[in-house]
């Protein structure tokens, strides 16, 4: 799911032999089989538990966790499911709410039950931010703050030195109640990023907020009613804080309601998980808890018919069912009223229809609803915009990027931008498509102790903070790599050693006798190579360490002496250095 689409996020990642499922969401736009991901992609007949090492849920929105009980209890999965503490707390409540709407209101059967939600949540392991969770010996995951909603997290999945980061939904600008997403420079092989607002660059938040308040204020002033469809947790709290402070400042009297049920509970979660909110709220919560609202009261269904202005927050956010849709139908006919859509609406929902300009809606039972009320759209979704997505890529420095959770056309644009700016490959697979990303895995090599001791004995003492060059023979045997000394390698492989020797002739103009030339060379080298053992042998030849130098007269020209420099392959470095040194000639003055 979520391939070139928004809804039913569900991504399978195979990394170094481990299979991880990222999110398990439902699709708001469908009521048939298409509302859940197609789990037959994982396996046709075996148990899912055998194929998946773990499942990770990024946050509590239903398009990220709505299919979880279906997946774990009805399809069957018993492995670990990871999510943050707030997600674990809130997720079952939204699932139960979703179940109620589907089963109790729409009368569907063959849907997951309350007990299934409970059983499913028993499989959940809660994780802390930045905690490294060892799923098994090789697979580890780590959560980062994502901002989007309370408890939203990005996850790093790591096996050996290969890693993937999945962002879930995130927000790069702090808002009134949450902080901004943050990740360290973890350089994953692949970054899987949402791209809801791939082409949007939003104007400043302050402007949007002022606009929103102005519209609400104007409508209320002229006696109209304002409907704000929201999801119980997330934007709702953000807008409540905004209106609460505005009402207080302007001393407004019109009532603000919040549709019943979840709200009170929702605000309670915010109070208890206040460590997940932004700096300012965390700092001041002892004096004044921002989630204790003075002006916002619980909504009762009967209030919708009350005369006079009011502002109502009602769920769900896309006007596809429930209370928000009921109120919408009541108020839609009056041009004094206004509906403000504060977030993204999935195709197929009433929200999407009215936003795309449709004013005559076909409701259930072929009834036509004429929309006369004003329709406003204001992006208050806490998703990163194009700028934010680029910013996250800059922070994490991935080797490749994969876009999900967005519309194909917009993704295409962002993909080009990413490839241009970061010179990394960018993918945007559709649902059911597989993308293969090549990585450069690191391969551990064992070094033999003897060789290590021998090599560290040469040159300066080892320093933990500096790299050191070592020589040895790489043996690849039985799927393992070892670095051993050449002698040992020969012995193990049963090979005879071949000596490789380089010999080089250097011509020098020197009329003196051979042994005098030899002596000059010796003195010259002795003077320069102070750290090496330079020896003059009785037979007139010179050795520098194991390199041999002999001076002979040229067969034709007695004034030219030929210096034979000979060294083994192992002394290549010193040998070539000596040749180039001797090629420069000997100093003029003779000792």
């Amino acid at each position: 799911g979520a391939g070139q689409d928004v809804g039913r996020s569900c991504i399978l990642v195979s990394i170094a032999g481990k299979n991880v499922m990222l999110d398990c969401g439902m699709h708001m736009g469908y009521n048939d089989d298409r509302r859940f991901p197609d789990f037959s992609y994982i396996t046709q007949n075996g148990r899912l538990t055998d194929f998946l090492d773990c499942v990770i849920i990024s946050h509590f929105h239903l398009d990220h966790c709505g299919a979880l009980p279906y997946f774990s209890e009805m399809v069957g999965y018993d492995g670990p499911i990871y999510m943050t503490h707030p997600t674990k707390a809130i997720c079952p409540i939204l699932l139960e709410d979703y179940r109620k709407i589907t089963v109790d209101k729409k009368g569907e059967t063959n849907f997951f039950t309350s007990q299934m939600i409970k059983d499913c949540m028993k499989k959940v392991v809660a994780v802390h931010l930045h905690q490294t969770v060892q799923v098994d010996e090789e697979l580890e995951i780590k959560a980062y703050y994502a901002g989007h909603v309370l408890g939203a997290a990005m996850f790093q999945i790591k096996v050996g030195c290969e890693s993937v980061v999945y962002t879930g939904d995130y927000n790069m600008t702090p808002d009134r109640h949450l902080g901004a997403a943050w990740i360290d420079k973890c350089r994953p092989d692949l970054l899987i990023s949402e791209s809801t607002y791939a082409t949007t660059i939003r104007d400043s938040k302050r402007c949007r907020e002022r606009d929103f308040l102005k519209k609400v204020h104007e409508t209320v002033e002229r006696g109209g009613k304002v409907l704000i469809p929201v999801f119980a947790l997330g934007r709702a709290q953000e807008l409540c804080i905004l209106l609460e402070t505005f009402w207080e400042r302007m001393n407004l009297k019109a009532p603000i309601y919040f549709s019943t049920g979840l709200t009170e509970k929702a605000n309670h979660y915010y109070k208890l998980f206040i460590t997940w909110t932004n700096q300012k709220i965390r700092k001041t919560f002892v004096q004044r808890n921002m989630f204790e609202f003075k002006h916002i009261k619980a909504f009762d269904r009967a209030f919708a018919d009350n005369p006079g202005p009011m502002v109502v927050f009602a769920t769900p956010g896309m006007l596809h069912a429930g209370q928000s849709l009921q109120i919408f139908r009541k108020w839609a006919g009056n041009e004094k009223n206004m509906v403000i859509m504060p977030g993204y609406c999935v195709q197929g929902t009433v929200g999407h229809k009215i936003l795309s300009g449709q004013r005559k809606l076909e409701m259930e039972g072929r009834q036509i609803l004429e929309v006369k009320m004003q329709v406003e759209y204001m992006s208050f979704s806490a998703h990163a915009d194009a700028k934010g997505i680029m910013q996250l890529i800059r922070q994490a420095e991935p080797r490749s990027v994969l876009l999900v959770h967005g519309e194909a056309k917009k993704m295409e644009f962002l993909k080009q931008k990413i490839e241009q700016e970061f010179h990394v490959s960018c993918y945007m697979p559709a649902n059911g498509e597989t993308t293969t990303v090549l990585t450069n895995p690191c391969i551990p090599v064992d070094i033999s102790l003897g060789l290590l001791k021998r090599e560290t004995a040469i040159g300066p003492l080892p320093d933990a903070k500096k790299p050191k060059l070592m020589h040895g023979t790489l043996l690849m045997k039985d799927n393992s790599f070892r670095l051993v000394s050449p002698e040992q390698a020969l012995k193990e492989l049963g090979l005879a050693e071949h000596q490789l020797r380089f010999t080089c002739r250097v011509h020098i103009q020197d009329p003196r006798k051979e042994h005098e030339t030899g002596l000059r060379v010796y003195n010259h080298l002795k003077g320069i190579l102070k750290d090496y053992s330079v020896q003059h042998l009785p037979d007139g030849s010179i050795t520098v360490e194991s390199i041999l130098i002999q001076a002979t007269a040229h067969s034709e020209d007695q004034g030219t002496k030929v210096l034979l420099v000979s060294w083994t392959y192992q002394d290549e470095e010193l040998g070539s250095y000596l040749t180039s040194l001797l090629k420069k000639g000997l100093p003029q003055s003779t000792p």
Partner: protein
Amino acid sequence: FLQYCLSGHPTLPCNVLKFKSTTIMLDCGLDMTSTLNFLPLPLVQSPRLSKLPGWVLKDGSTFLDKELKECSGHVFVDSVPEFCLPETELLDLSTVDVILISNYHCMMALPYITEYTGFTGTVYATEPTVQIGRLLMEELVNSIERVPKAQSASMWKNKEVQRLLPAPLKDAVEVSMWRKCYTMPEVNAALSKIQLVGYSQKIELFGAVQVTPLSSGYALGSSNWIIQSHYEKVSYVSGSSLLTTHPQPMDQASLKNSDVLILTGLTQIPTANPDGMVGEFCSNLAMTVRNGGNVLVPCYPSGVIYDLLECLYQYIDSAGLSNVPFYFISPVANSSLEFSQIFAEWLCHNKQTKVYLPEPPFPHAELIQTNKLKHYPSIHGDFSNDFKQPCVVFTGHPSLRFGDVVHFMELWGKSSLNTVIFTEPDFSYLDALAPYQPLAMKCVYCPIDTRLNFIQVSKLLKEVQVMNFLLP
């Protein structure tokens, strides 16, 4: 691998570890037992304290009578109380790369280290540790600063003079190094150097060493630390508990196969079983109140008090104490109670489950709601209007030398109906009471120390299979 021990106090450690060319300070505890040598700081003018006679030497010379006062045969310094810092001479503390904090009690010396030694490194601690540590420091600074003392005694510290003094002053070590309390700006500066970490978070130090905090089960956010290179593993176990109280249980599995295990912060009263002590606490409290007396509980503003309140929550109705007011007085009382409710992730499983409902994890929320527990920043202001007796008062500081507790000792000390119940194990209760003698009030000692005892340690060591074991 090198270790230096900079603190003489067994439960308030300060060690420095040199490992793989990094220098790591383990904890930063402040020994406050030095304050027991000082006179209490009364919030309200105390005629009794101001009338105490000056101390006169055997030869009759009186040059110290302004600095030293005598009370029931003990001699006290009449000055701003001072603390015994970790040893700062042994090694150059500016070379310390990082400081790892294991719990909020073990960070009280932090401002002295970060602000006065040229320290430029980073401090690592969990969020509850920092938040509650800040509250403890705030309370400390507040309770000392609100009672300005004109004189600062220094004559007695002269080595020649100190020799002539009676015990324990005579035997106090390094009195010249004792320091006055830090200030709030210093606390803020010190805390700003802390980087927050979560349990099981792997933190790389210069690519040479990796450190990881683990749950230690002793207090909110308390942690043990694993310090490891690729092939060696050092475990630092400080202030750990295997008992089930409010914090997340101790993570023992991750300590397995350590090459070295450094163990500090063991219980100081291995014979006192915490459960038994809580029971005794409740029954003594009930008895006193039933007889019309008041109960004073000197305590820190966070930690065991949460457990005590929880016990009382279950106990008061059955004991017929539902009408007795409970007061919690501290400049940080409100913050402490509020903070305790928001660290769900750091709490034991039971409390976590409550948050999922969502309900506050600690029942003191209900005690406050039903007006059974009231909290005040100090005895001044609202408290004096609401104050009803008999009552139970929780307040600091456990040393009985500063804070609101001094006032209640003076107020209630003369009546044998009242009881003071000591629950914090850090101070000897007899020493704490010395400047209040003679005392008619009943004294009960119910120390609650949930840290590891010897039996638990040997069991732990068997389970985690360490190669070397170090008890600094």
